[in-house]
């Protein structure tokens, strides 16, 4: 499987940020022709290790050798030139440029110094076809959903003739089909002798593809193990540092009595809500204490549906009633006024305010609802923030830190806290567990169950079908921006059945194509 000589060795790496020691004497090896998973909780230092490697950050101590030669990349440009190709966590592309250009910028085919645009487009199409994506490569990237953007980022990375390919949580916004496609290509690349470094929080993905695993905890190296020698449970223990039984407990959650929930007037009733070009009109009822799961393939319109419901986009069709009364949810302010919260899937662009502190980010929605003239007393703020920092185990637990300094997963928790603080009656969670480590994911799922038991309605969107099924009372299936089915989550419903519902559409689509 592996040569005896590693293509990449990192030894004694340390890296500090003001107030945080992100990496502490970490060693890491990567062999050609292997898929190597880098595992750890949120904030363990995975992304930092990668950025240190590619020169985004300078290192404080330690050495990096690539192919036996000591290197110190001054930035991604040099790293790419040195044969290290990277997809960073969160999509880091330019949404104002076209899809094709995002794939090739910096290494466009040229003739006499002029970019050959035809060639760029042709090759972009070919490359995306390899990932089984068929989109207009000339449209600006920003017009596509995050998942498509993620695939484009991957396409960009695999086009390079690299010796090392790094993928930092590439699968967090992909659905099962996309992941399978990606893995096929990863295996292909591995067989060509390329070394792949892969970060994910999905354990089954790790066991599906990784040859070896390196575990980080709190910026320190826990160890390096062949996947075969590391049972799943041991891995989790190593990541978390203690024995964990939350997961099992969650699996045993009893299905709840749906009929009882659906007796009264629904909290929210959506009638034929739609928006041209975004979602076909759909109807939906959500009762207090009910968890409604939204399932569908990427780009199926789940996010768009949620945004319409929240008033983030204006509907041009249909109407919404809250507690039995007509409510015009024309903008988020109205929706929040009716006790609806919305946790966006795109936390960087639509979620966090990077400049502000963790505390301010958390209380923002509540403060907005109160109006600026009635500030939340500082003591109350501290109480609230403290509670949720603890409840969601946000690290570092310093509420005055600018939120930009937190790791991706912790930023997500801050966002979640923002909405929980407002104590909404309906919380829309769009991919709330994306990029969240297994421990925290379990915590969040537990939280959802708790909240709904306490009477809160939840609209739950997730790419993980199991997650949706585990939590929801009702599963709404979307396909092609259209609501195609509503399934009551009883014993007859399982992942296969939902998949079939989705797939039946896909097949029809294939037939017509």
């Amino acid at each position, binding site marked *: 499987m592996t040569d005896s000589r590693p293509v990449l060795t990192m030894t004694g790496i340390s890296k500090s940020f003001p107030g945080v020691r992100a990496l502490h004497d970490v060693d890491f090896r990567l062999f050609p022709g292997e898929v190597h998973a880098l595992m750890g909780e949120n904030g363990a230092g995975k992304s930092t290790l990668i950025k240190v490697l590619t020169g*985004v950050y300078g290192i404080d101590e330690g050495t990096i050798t690539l192919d036996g030669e000591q290197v110190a990349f001054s*930035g*991604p*440009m040099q*790293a*790419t*030139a040195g044969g290290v190709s*990277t997809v*960073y966590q969160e999509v*880091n*592309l*330019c*949404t*104002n*440029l*076209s899809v*094709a*250009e*995002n794939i090739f*910028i*910096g290494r*466009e085919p*040229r003739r006499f*110094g*002029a*970019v050959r*645009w035809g060639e760029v*487009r042709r090759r972009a199409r070919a490359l995306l076809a390899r990932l089984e994506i068929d989109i*207009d*490569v*000339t449209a*600006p990237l920003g017009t596509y959903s995050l998942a498509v953007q993620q695939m484009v980022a991957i396409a*960009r990375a695999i086009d390079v003739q690299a010796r090392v390919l790094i993928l930092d949580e590439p699968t967090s916004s992909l659905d099962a089909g996309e992941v399978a496609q990606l893995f096929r290509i990863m295996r292909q690349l591995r067989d060509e002798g390329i070394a792949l470094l892969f970060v994910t929080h999905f354990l089954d993905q790790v066991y599906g593809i990784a040859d070896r695993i390196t575990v980080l905890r709190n910026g320190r190296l826990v160890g390096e193990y062949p996947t075969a020698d590391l049972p799943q449970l041991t891995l989790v223990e190593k990541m978390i540092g203690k024995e964990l039984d939350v997961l099992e407990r969650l699996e045993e959650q009893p299905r709840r009595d749906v009929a009882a929930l659906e007796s009264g007037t629904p909290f929210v009733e959506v009638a034929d809500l739609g928006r041209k070009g975004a979602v076909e009109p759909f109807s939906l009822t959500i009762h207090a204490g009910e968890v409604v799961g939204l399932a569908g393939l990427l780009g199926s319109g789940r996010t768009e549906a949620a945004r319409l419901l929240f008033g983030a986009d204006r509907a041009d069709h249909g109407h919404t009633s809250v507690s039995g009364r007509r409510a015009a949810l024309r903008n988020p302010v109205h929706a929040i006024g009716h006790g609806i919260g919305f946790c966006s899937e795109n936390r960087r662009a639509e979620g966090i305010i990077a400049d502000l502190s963790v505390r301010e980010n958390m209380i923002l929605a509540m403060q907005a609802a109160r109006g600026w003239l009635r500030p939340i007393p500082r003591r109350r703020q501290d109480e609230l923030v403290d509670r949720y920092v603890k409840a969601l185990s946000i690290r570092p637990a310093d509420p005055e830190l600018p939120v930009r300094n937190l790791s991706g997963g912790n930023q997500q928790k801050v966002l979640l806290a923002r909405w929980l603080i407002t104590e909404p009656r309906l919380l829309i969670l769009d991919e709330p567990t994306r990029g969240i480590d297994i421990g925290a994911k379990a915590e969040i799922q537990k939280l959802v169950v708790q909240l709904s038991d306490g009477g809160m309605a939840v609209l739950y969107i997730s790419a993980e079908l199991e997650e949706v099924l585990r939590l929801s009372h009702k599963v709404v299936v979307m396909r092609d921006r259209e609501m195609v089915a509503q399934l009551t989550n009883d014993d007859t419903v399982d992942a296969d059945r939902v998949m079939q519902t989705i797939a039946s559409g896909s097949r029809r689509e294939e037939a017509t194509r």
Partner: protein
Amino acid sequence: MTSSTLTTGRPRLRLPHRHVPVLATLALLLVMYGIGVSQYRAFSNVQVVFNIFIDNGFLLVVAVGMTFVILTGGIDLSVGSVVAMTAMVSAWLLEGGLPALPVLVIALLIGPTLGFLMGCAIHFFEIQPFIVTLAGMFFARGMCTFISDRSIPITDGFWTAMSQERIGDPRGNFVSISVLIAFVVVLVAAWVLAYTRFGRNVYAIGGNPQSALLMGLPVGRARIAVYTISGLCSAIGGILLSFYTLSGAPLIAVGMELDVIAAVVIGGTVLTGGSGYVFGTVLGVLVLGVIQTLITFDGSLNSWWTKIVIGGLLFAFILLQRLIGIRLK
């Protein structure tokens, strides 16, 4: 035109979104010109259009440089002063008896050098472009008055020839050489932005500098380069201005940076960077030129009414542009 035609893959019937601002500007410009023609008799003369180019050639060149800077999300406030400084230095050197060629070379080196230094300060020390270029503006303006506190006439043969040479048709309509130079600059810039890696990097940086960095693009180099280019364009603009006025004056082109920024923005370039075209900038300059021509042709406006009307026309224009933009989208 510019890259507009390039990234559009298949022929489509609907208007591509990103061209909407430029097209709206073009349409409004034509409407405005039409109003002029219908209201003022001599307005329809071809020479009136040529004059707009002659009178705004230097502005155009400077605006092209500014387009690069604004596309990266930056801003360059030093342009007006650099224009003045270039004209001033040329006049001063010519007065000192230096021949035309070395004067041209020196004058064309000063602007880019200053731009390069400003770009370095912006990139390496991460100081905001607004401040760095404001300091550059103070510096260049200070140099102007330092050289001389009164205007210096230029009598050099080359300059006079460039200034007074008319390229025209038999009916007496003509443009100056400066206009041709400005057109060359526009074409080169449009080509660079649309067809070179550097040009595309400029757009990428404007879209998202952090991403551009992570995508492995030479962000630092490109950023320094755009300020250098802006400096170069200002220097060329300064030379054209010295052709235009055959002198260097310490207080000339005061406030020009605002005209230039306005032209670029009216042309559809977004100040936060990442989208816009050189062609739009050309339109923006023409809009300002036409507004001015309309006012002169009217010839009945009081001094303060002139300002109010300029503001009003600007407003009407931007409002319509915005409304049309929304409608078409």
